[in-house]
């Protein structure tokens, strides 16, 4: 398994500002993922962050709006830029852990960062 810590856990942000969310994992992982969950909705994958390469963004998400850093195998950041009320969501970091040859890889999630844009 993996223990994933996200900061901040909750924040209220002003419209037009940017906020960086940090994700720290207790073990080295190759793949990290960032999701968004809007109120009452399911999770939507924003991007995949592989250490040492540019993040891969899903349709509807762009690097200018959601720049991601992945400086090492235990840490990543997601920035939500030029925020609007529509960006009010929970942002979740997740990691892929190799459990073993007979168990497959498992993805674990952090507790999320709840952003409210006013």
């Amino acid at each position, binding site marked *: 398994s993996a223990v994933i810590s996200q900061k901040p856990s909750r924040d209220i942000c002003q419209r037009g500002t940017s906020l960086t969310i940090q994700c720290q994992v207790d073990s080295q992982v190759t*793949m990290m993922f960032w999701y968004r969950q809007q109120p009452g909705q399911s999770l939507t994958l924003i991007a995949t962050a592989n250490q040492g390469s540019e993040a891969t963004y899903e349709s509807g998400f762009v690097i200018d709006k959601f720049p991601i850093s992945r400086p090492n195998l235990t840490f990543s950041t997601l920035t939500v830029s030029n925020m609007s009320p529509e960006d009010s969501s929970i942002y979740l970091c997740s990691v892929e852990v190799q459990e073993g040859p007979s168990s497959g890889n498992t993805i674990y*999630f952090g507790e999320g960062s709840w952003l409210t844009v006013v």
Partner: protein
Amino acid sequence: LAKTTQPISMDSYEGQEVNITCSHNNIATNDYITWYQQFPSQGPRFIIQGYKTKVTNEVASLFIPADRKSSTLSLPRVSLSDTAVYYCLVGDREGGYNKLIFGAGTRLAVHP
């Protein structure tokens, strides 16, 4: 990309066994089936993962038939605290890693 289909909602009572079935007709040979539980304002919590037949842990059992086109999550003797959204996922390994695309999930309500 294997898509999953599961009931939108289910109701149960304390002490009962709950079975949530998920269909994934397009599951690929290398795909594992994973179930998560999510409470409001929290990140999804891993419950169980399997490839075929039956997997059991301290929380749940996962039944997967031979054709792997469906799976059933079994929660024994549910309590009020099991009220949550349950997601069935099949990994998309097209990029060489396990990318999870979430559906709507099943909202389980456990009543006294």
